[in-house]
Structure formats: C-alpha cells, structure tokens
C-alpha cells in the first residue's frame, strides 16, 4: 500500500493571524472590546478619583440624587456614594465572571476531550450527565446550591461554574470527535504517544477556537447569573458590593430613588453586551463558514 508521506500535523497556531484579522475587522467585536475595556478601567481607576470611598456612610446625605454634593450617581439609603460602590462592585462582579470562565471552561474542556477521545460508553455516560445538568433551569439549581453554602466570592464563582460547564463540554466533545480520526492523531498513536498526551497536546489545542468563543460567552452568562442570585440575596453578601446586590432592595425605593435601580443595571448591561459582542466577533473570526454572512 502506497500512501502519501505523513505531512506534519495540520495544527493551527493558537491565534491564527487570519482569525485575528477577521476579529479586528468585525465592528461589533471592536465595540465590545471598547465597552469591556472602558468599564474595566473605570472600575479599577475610578475609585481613586472619587472623593468618597465605598464604605463611607453619611446619613445626612441619604438618597442624594445623581450629580448633587459630588455624588455623580447619587447615594444609597445609607448615604454611601453609589459611584464608589459601583466601581468596587464591578471589580468583584467581573472577577467572579472571569473566575467562572476559567473554571467552567477548564472543567468543560476536560470532560469534553475525554468524552470525545474515548467515545463509546465513556462518552455516553458523560454526555448523559451533561444532558441531566442541562435539564435543570440553571437559576433553580444555582439558588438551591447558593442557599446551602457560605456565600464568599470564591464559593459563588464555584457554584456558578457548576451550572455553566456543560456548553463547553458539548462543544469540545463534538470538535474532538471530528478530529479524532484525522491523520495527525493517527500519527500520534503510531508514535506511541500516551492517550493523555494526545488528548491535551494534540486534540485540545486544535479545538481552541470554539473553546475561546464559548469562554467569552461564559463570562457574560456568569455576570448575569451572579447578578440574579445577588439580587435575590443569595449571592455576594454586603458590605462587599456587587452589581447584583446593589440592586437588592432597589425595588422598594423605585418611586423615590430610581437611580438606585438604574445605575447598576446599566453597568451590568454594558458589561454583558460587551462580552456578547466579543463572543460574536470571535465566532465569526474562527468560523470561516460564517465569514460571508
């Protein structure tokens, strides 16, 4: 049997220059990057520029409307400066978002690559577990978990991850399954490389595109979920501010102090929209098929 000599594996570099170029020419993605960057800068530099810190309580200045007394976004029921709290909350909410992205993406990738590589019974069991997790509305599962733990930011990130890894697992599994029979994997087998090496050094890097896309959408999702459960009082606990828990209690002052509700919600929407735009741009950049859309 004659066959073409095995050419070097068609491994794509992690950041394809073509993909990068396509991403940069994607207008929405750039807007997303600008939104996320400016929000991040505001959250980390903002607190140093403000006259008040986020814990400063001033009962004489309760419910100050935005723009009065040096409070650009007004004050809350305790007279604390909302801008200062908003920026600190942003640091925490975004940190939770990124932590979830790392944990959920890593775990989902491992499950996906194992399932895709071994196939058969292993895959059947793992993917049924993925399906089962997807059968719970994630807010229900998340609240049930949140009610039983000490709600530190680390634990919150962990339980949000526990309800966010399934998408990545599915994507990676499908990708690895399609790569499994390609020449470079056969070559790696013939070279006698271990299964672990093939999974994590050969297969996973080749699935990096869809993983990055899923990861950017996971940040958006995590920020939303954190906001939900903190709004309901089961997430990040005061005095530590988060965008979600700043909204907790805002409903009862909706008529008299609407800025309490408006300001943090706008921040959440900007952050989540930004990450969704980035995810969309990355999807178009990595997926050559959708290039003409």
């Amino acid at each position: 049997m004659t066959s073409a000599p095995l050419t070097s594996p068609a491994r794509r570099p992690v950041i394809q220059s073509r993909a990068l170029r396509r991403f940069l020419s994607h207008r929405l993605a750039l807007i997303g990057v600008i939104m996320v960057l400016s929000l991040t800068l505001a959250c980390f530099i903002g607190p140093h520029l403000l006259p008040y810190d986020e814990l400063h309580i001033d009962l004489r200045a309760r419910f100050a409307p935005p723009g009065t007394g040096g409070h650009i976004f007004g004050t809350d029921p305790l007279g604390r400066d909302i801008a200062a709290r908003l920026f600190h909350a942003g640091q925490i909410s975004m940190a939770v978002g990124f932590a979830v992205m790392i944990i959920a993406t890593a775990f989902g990738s491992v499950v996906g690559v194992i399932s895709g590589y071994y196939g058969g019974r292993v895959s059947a069991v793992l993917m049924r577990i993925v399906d089962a997790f997807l059968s719970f509305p994630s807010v229900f599962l998340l609240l049930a978990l949140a009610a039983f733990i000490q709600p530190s930011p680390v634990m919150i990130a962990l339980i949000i991850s526990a309800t966010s890894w399934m998408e990545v697992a599915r994507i990676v599994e499908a990708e690895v399954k399609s790569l499994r029979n390609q020449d470079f994997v056969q070559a790696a087998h013939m070279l006698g490389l271990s299964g672990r090496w093939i999974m994590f050094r050969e297969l996973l890097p080749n699935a990096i595109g869809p993983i990055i896309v899923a990861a950017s959408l996971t940040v958006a999702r995590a920020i939303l979920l954190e906001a939900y459960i903190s709004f309901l009082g089961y997430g990040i606990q005061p005095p530590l501010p988060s965008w979600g828990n700043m909204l907790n209690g805002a409903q009862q002052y909706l008529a008299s102090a609407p800025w309490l509700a408006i300001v943090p919600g706008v921040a959440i929407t900007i952050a989540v929209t930004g990450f969704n735009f980035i995810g969309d741009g990355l999807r178009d950049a990595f997926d050559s098929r959708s290039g003409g859309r």
Partner: protein
Amino acid sequence: MLRYILSRLGQSLILLLIVSFIGFAVLTLAPGGPLSQFALSPGMTQEQIDKITEQMGLNRPLWVQYIDWFTHMITGDWGTSYRDGQPVLHVIGSHLFATLLLMGTATTLSVSIGSSIGILSAIRRGSLFDTTMTVAAMIALSIPTFWFGLIAIYIFSLNLGWLPAGNMYNIGDQSVLDYLRHLILPASVLALVDVAIWSRYMRTSTLNVIHQDFVRTARAKGLSSRRVLLKHIVGNSLVPMITLAGLQVPMVLGGALVTETVFTWPGMGRLFLDSLGYSDYPVVMGLLMASALLVLIGNLAADLLIAQIDPRVRLD
C-alpha cells in the same frame, strides 16, 4: 415511529434517573443539610436532634435514603412541606397554573414577534432593518431580566400608571380583563430575551430554506413571491423551531422564576424562593425535580412532534 417513540422515552427515563441523583445529592450533601433548621432553634438539645434524625430516617446510609425517596417519588408521594404540612405535590400543583400561564403567554408573544422579525431579516438580509435587529437582539440578550422588570415597573406602573406593578389579580376583581392587565408587564419582560433568540434562529432557518430547490421551483412555476414566502418558506423554516421550543423550556422556566420575584407573581419561582427562605427542603427538592420534569417533557414533546412532521428524523 413506535420504535422511535420507545427509544426516545427510554432516553428520557435514564435522564430523569440521573437528574434525580443530582437533585438528591445537592440537597443531601450540602453543608447544613435538612437538620440545620432545628439546630438553631433555642432550647434544642443534642438528644432531641438525634431523635428527629432518627424519625426522619436521616441516620440511614445515603443510598437507602435515596432509594426510599425515589420510590416514594415515582408513586406520587413527594413528602410534606415543613412549613405547613401540606403534601409537596399539592403545594407545587397550586402554583403550577400561574407559572404555566406566564410562560405560555410569554412564549406566544416571543414566537410570533421573534419569528416575524427573523423572517423579515432573512428576506431583507444586509438591510438596515436586518443590522438593527441583529444588534438589538444581542443587547436584549444582555439585559438582566429582573432589572428590565424593575425598569418596566418604573415606567409603566409608577410613572405612567398604565399597568399594575405586581400580583396576578386585584382582590375582589378576578375578571379575565383583570388577569390580562396584570399579565401584560411580566409576560412582556419574560418574552424579551426569547424574542431575541427566536428572531436569530428564525433568520438562520429562513436563510437555509430560501436557497433550496423547492423554493426555486415554486418561483419558476410562477407563484407570486408572497405565496412562495407564506406557503413554502415560512412553513419549512418553522420546523426546526419546534426543537428550539423544546430546548428553550429551561431558559423560559428560569426566566419565569426571576420575573415572578420582581412582579410578586404567585407561581413556582416565587414558591421556590419562599421555600428556600424557610429551609423547606421537601418543597425545594420537589420544585427542582418538577422543573427538570417539565424540561424533559418539553424536549420529548418537541422531538416527537418533529418526528411526526419530518420523517427524516425517525431514521436517525
């Protein structure tokens, strides 16, 4: 077809089994556990706690507890609420209608509006309308549902005074019109995210259909473009949407929970939060299982329906 139904049913049952493992594990292994509500009561001695442990069967091995719980569950005994001693199934049943009403209305809204936007975007691909709707859909997907609810209350209830800010009806007035007035805001808020998703999928689905041979044939036969659109394109691009409708159940259910809390809507979501607040584990567990059950039934129904419509699916 029968074979397909049976195999699909079997898959759902296996999934239900795994779901029950997860639900049981979450509530049993969580620190605190079912006894935490007693541990904090004043005057509780260790002896009394031990006695309750024994009465509730919590000192048995976990797998015995699980099998016991599972057999009770499939025979319809979901335990009794710690809060008022009522059977869990009864408690859930009395909140089911409100949630299904909210979900049903929101889904009707989002399917009709979302599909229309999707079809229009597809046939005017690249137009200003298409681009605007693409961006609008992504922003709509990014707005937290509960916050959108707050803003809607602020504008339409507090400022304009057009609609009530919460509850399902006014006491003393339970006419259909009254229900409707209370339903509009929460249903619209819940529908927003779904409109975005439906419009995106419908756009893709329509684009897939538009370029197929039978559409060209229909045009070549000389049918008016309106007739081609309505009879050939829309019908066919709606088929994959059935699967989507099934897959959307967990999202809509989760969204309903959040919406219900903002609008004090007396459904399953409201019940879930109240039960969490009271550490009412049997109800929490029951709701977790009931929501997963609704999701599984939704997926199963969607799959069977699509197999009925599209024979290619059955052969898979």
